[in-house]
């Protein structure tokens, strides 16, 4: 086979026609184990590029080396779903002149598809690829070094970017099927030592909790699901990454077994918990935009009923066909909720960016029932706050949030009185969310205002492409 696609990273960049000021993109399927962003940006810096805009599906602790590239002017703009660790801290303290643009996963997919976010060159890591560019997050040979499963967040980039470079640590014989990224979308293929450390995929936000309070919250949330009116044969479900929201699955499973109820599909970030229920026959299909651990990644590699979905088909607000529109129940976490059910999942109580929007606003808005699970207090930090003005950053508007589960009671959005009635009838403790905020306040006192400066370091876009909120720099 005569091949002109297989080149070095430097040659691939040269061929791409990348120029200063252009937008480069990355996916975050390796999460805390990602090696592609740092490797590529190091190379771009070495080649003398400046003023590049980095459009990642998300960034985490491992991307701290970007700080030096930002200081050197190599990277002057970032758009992402989230930021964590040293990079987040530096940006919150005013590292960048241009504010970081935060979008939800569905919002990013829409923005790429409708041209709001134009990508010049996409650098997409893959666990296997052939020399024509057919690429997958699944390993396909004995020499495979990594596995990330779904490449859902990379698919809009592959489809809409002007130029696509696939990086892989396992070049396999043509044809690499089934493929996630098609050869026709790919201009260059680069073989590297490692695209990511698969062992670190389930790091960051995802943890399996043994905390008794998380378990209590999970049991309460499971009761909400079971008595919500949506828990019936053929229902569909998604869970977020918080310890309690993951643990809910365990308790729902028991009730599914007892009542002979099966789910039609589970959506979103797929975990080992969901795979287990699927393999037991309790969930018919898995629709996977991101494999959250190795078990999920291995499952998608071998199971036809465990399907990859692109960010657009997962959660775009622009497409009625996106999966969130068919979703019955979503269980999410929160850093803060205010009395109007508005939620912050991005900026921490110290005013520093420390999380990710993820699919939070997408799933909350389009699902039939959204449940937020959070403790009333984390240490001295309140999770239910009095007003939108005391909410640090608005990420998910309250009109899409139906139920808030805390250890001090369950609050139901006044817009969903039928849910409140069903839960009360089942003997659950329903409280007014104002009472939760007052309870928190009575325990902790009145917090002083955070020392925000007057520079805008982040802009939160809603999933429809409009500015929702601004994040200011924090001063020490």
């Amino acid at each position: 086979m005569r091949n002109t696609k297989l080149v070095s990273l430097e040659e691939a960049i040269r061929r791409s026609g990348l120029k200063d000021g252009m937008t480069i993109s990355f996916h975050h399927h390796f999460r805390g184990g990602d090696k592609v962003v740092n490797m590529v940006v190091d190379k771009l810096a070495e080649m003398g590029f400046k003023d590049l805009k980095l459009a990642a599906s998300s960034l985490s602790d491992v991307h701290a080396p970007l700080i030096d590239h930002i200081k050197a002017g190599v990277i002057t703009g970032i758009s992402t779903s989230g930021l964590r660790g040293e990079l987040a801290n530096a940006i919150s303290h005013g590292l960048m002149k241009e504010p970081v643009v935060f979008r939800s996963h569905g919002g990013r997919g829409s923005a790429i598809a409708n041209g709001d976010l134009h990508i010049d060159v996409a650098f997409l890591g893959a666990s296997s690829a052939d020399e024509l560019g057919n690429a997958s997050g699944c390993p396909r040979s004995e020499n495979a070094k990594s596995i990330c499963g779904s490449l859902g967040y990379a698919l809009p980039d592959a489809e809409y970017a002007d130029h696509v470079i696939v990086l892989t640590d396992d070049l396999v014989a043509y044809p690499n099927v089934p493929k996630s990224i098609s050869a026709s979308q790919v201009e260059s293929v680069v073989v590297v030592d490692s695209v990511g450390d698969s062992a670190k995929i389930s790091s960051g936000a995802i943890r399996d909790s043994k905390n008794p309070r998380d378990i209590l919250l999970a049991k309460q949330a499971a009761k909400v699901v079971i008595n919500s009116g949506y828990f019936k044969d053929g229902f569909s479900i998604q869970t977020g990454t918080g310890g309690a929201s993951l643990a809910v699955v365990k308790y729902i499973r028991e009730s599914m077994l007892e009542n002979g109820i099966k789910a039609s599909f589970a959506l979103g970030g797929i975990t080992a918990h969901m795979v287990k229920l699927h393999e037991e026959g309790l969930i018919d299909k898995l629709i996977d935009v991101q494999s959250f651990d190795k078990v999920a990644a291995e499952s998608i590699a071998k199971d036809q009923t465990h399907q990859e979905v692109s960010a657009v088909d997962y959660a775009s607000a622009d497409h009625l066909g996106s999966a969130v529109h068919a979703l019955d129940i979503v269980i999410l976490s929160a850093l803060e909720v205010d009395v109007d059910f508005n939620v912050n999942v991005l900026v921490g109580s110290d005013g520093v960016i420390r999380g990710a929007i993820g699919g939070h606003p997408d799933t909350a808005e389009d699902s039939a029932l959204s449940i937020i699970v959070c403790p009333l207090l984390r240490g001295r930090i309140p999770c239910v706050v009095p007003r939108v003005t005391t909410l640090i950053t608005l990420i998910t508007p309250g009109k899409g949030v139906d139920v808030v589960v805390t250890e001090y009671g369950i609050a139901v959005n006044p817009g969903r009185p039928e849910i409140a009635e069903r839960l009360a009838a089942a003997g659950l403790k329903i409280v007014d969310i104002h009472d939760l905020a007052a309870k928190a306040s009575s325990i902790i006192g009145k917090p002083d205002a955070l020392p925000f400066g007057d520079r805008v370091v982040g802009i939160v876009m809603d999933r429809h492409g409009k500015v929702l909120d601004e994040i200011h720099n924090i001063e020490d």
Partner: protein
Amino acid sequence: MAGTLESGDIMIRIAPGDGLKIDLQSSVSAQFGRQIKAVITETLEGLGIKDASVEAIDKGALDCTIRARVTAAAVRATGKDVWKD
């Protein structure tokens, strides 16, 4: 000294001093530093202690925990057991 560095706790060290000096490091200092210092001061004054150098490392403790840790540290430092004596 009393307390730990666990989340939700506060570690208090007390040494002899001239006047009351509180050195506070807190994960929630921006929002609650003022209140935490006030609770430490009140608790020590309630025990009749006006001269002490206090080092406090806070991990988001509630007021009740702060009072308990400060009291325990004072008891250990002075040998005067307010719960028994």
